[in-house]
């Protein structure tokens, strides 16, 4: 397999090019979670079958994306991992594409098992998968990703309560903890307070990944989370990232949540990102 360190810069190139091409989409959270997606799909998930994708998840570690708007990083990762041709990234958000603005099973894009976009639903879906795996005596794990702003949704806390109370311990839920949402900092819009204490109070294990944009740290943190699974509690991963990471003028700025780069910005961005695996 490719040197894993070559993957993040290429995914970042894909992200900014895809979003620039259609002048729409969500680059901020996508850029911030590149290391997470790389770690997950190229190192952590067991027994996934990119070339032989089935909508049913039995017999493999299963990933559910709850904050569906970060499709640029999701699609790029799936394509680079071999779920569908890299060339198809050029159809992102265009009429007739399988690469819808938000993930959809409707058009049969390999890698997608459930639609997301309306926030707050993915943890509940993951609970169904996790309990289904237990019924099937399948010891694979279920992973999710959520935005921190997304945790303002009430349904998330229904699922957090349920998972903790019922001891759903084959579930690892990661929060992209970048303190940014559309209208500003999460702390300013609606603070989550002491998130770690909240998860612990709901009977979850919590792993902090202090530098969520360091690939080695993310892999190490996710492995730690995996080691905590199977012990009677669900596991939350607080993934401290920077929105827009990897491009100096975008880093840490919530205004890049859902804004496309213009021509000049694209040129500037691409100069900061080596083309390691070949552009689509």
């Amino acid at each position: 397999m490719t040197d894993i360190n070559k993957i993040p810069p290429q995914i970042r190139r894909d992200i900014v090019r895809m979003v620039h091409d259609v002048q729409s989409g969500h680059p901020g959270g996508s850029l911030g979670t590149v290391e997470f997606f790389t770690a997950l799909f190229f190192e952590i998930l067991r027994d996934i079958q990119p070339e032989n994708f089935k909508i049913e998840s039995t017999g493999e570690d299963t990933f559910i994306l709850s904050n569906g708007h970060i499709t640029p990083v999701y699609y790029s990762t799936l394509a680079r991992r071999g779920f569908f041709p890299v060339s198809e990234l050029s159809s992102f958000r265009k009429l007739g594409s399988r690469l819808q603005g938000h993930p959809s099973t409707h058009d049969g894009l390999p890698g997608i098992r459930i639609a997301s976009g309306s926030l707050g639903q993915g943890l509940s879906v993951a609970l169904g998968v996790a309990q289904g795996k237990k019924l099937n005596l399948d010891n694979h794990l279920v992973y999710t990703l959520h935005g921190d702003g997304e945790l303002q949704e009430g349904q998330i806390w229904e699922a957090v309560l349920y998972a903790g109370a019922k001891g759903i311990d084959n579930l690892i839920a990661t929060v992209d903890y970048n303190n940014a949402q559309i209208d500003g900092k999460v702390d300013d819009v609606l603070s989550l307070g002491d998130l770690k204490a909240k998860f612990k109070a709901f009977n979850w294990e919590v792993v902090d990944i202090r530098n969520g944009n360091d690939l080695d740290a993310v892999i190490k943190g996710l492995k730690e989370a995996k080691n905590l699974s199977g012990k009677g509690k669900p596991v939350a991963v607080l993934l401290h990232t920077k929105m827009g990471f990897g491009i100096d003028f975008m880093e840490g700025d919530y205004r890049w949540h859902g804004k496309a780069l213009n021509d000049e910005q694209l040129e500037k961005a691409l100069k900061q990102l080596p083309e390691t695996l070949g552009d689509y």
Partner: protein
Amino acid sequence: MKKYTYTEKKDTRSGFGDALTELGKKNKNIVALTADVAGSVKMNEFAKLFPERFFDVGIQEANMIGMAAGFTLEGKIPFASTFAEFITGRVYDQIRQAVAYSEKNVKICASHAGLTVGEDGATHQALEDLGMMKMLPGMVVINPCDYNQTKAATLAIAEHKGPVYLRFGRPKVPNFTPENQKFEIGKAVVLNEGKDVSIFATGHLVWEAIKATEKLEAEGISVDLINIHTIKPLDKKAVLNSVKKTGAVVTAEEHNRLGGLGESISGLLSSEYPAPQEFVAVNDKFGESGTGDELMKKYGLDAESIYQAVKKVLNRK
């Protein structure tokens, strides 16, 4: 006309519960979910026999719908059930995204639908659910009329791959359709053949329509009476064949006139075979407290209302 009789009154929700138990015995992939109303939706027997496949999620309808969608990814056939209002209006976005748009094999089973919930009042009387559900692409919408038919429908939807909305209720109503009937999704059931007027009824209103038909036939009015247990996909052929014979239509349902069966039928007829139509339905109102029978009378959802609607539509022919 053929005489319809019954030996006992039974609640349609028990038809659901009994069928679910039967399904649980036959198929280990059946899982049942409810949100703190296991007894009310008649899941107690399933829960007792298959505790590992029964999930009482607590008072968390949104989480329940998401979980049901997730179960399908592991090859399970989830039957999620609570009161009709809370499993539609409260979780419409969850059903839309995680079930309908995602094309998941989830069975959304709604009890306590309509005015016949009675004393609990308008907060618990779903009169908009059929409309909400039929607007979702790919959603099958079924509203059976009695215990036997609800049981048969429950068994049938387990065999159908895809999202289904199954609606039933709390009151004990005449159980007149055949035991062990074969339930065909999307296939209307002709209860009486006639030539003067078509009555299309669904759910609890089917028995009321039978009583109205008996009275009308006794007066020499020939009624084509059809039980539309599947609102979507609508049995267009059955509707058109009937209206081509009669040229006049009455629809009857325990639902808001907006979004209900009547609207589906008038939509079909206006483009294929226009005919005068009268609607026996709740006329854009919320319900209120009272006994089920009192409410059905007050809101014009009984045999007498159907009888009057036929008289009215015949004058418009």
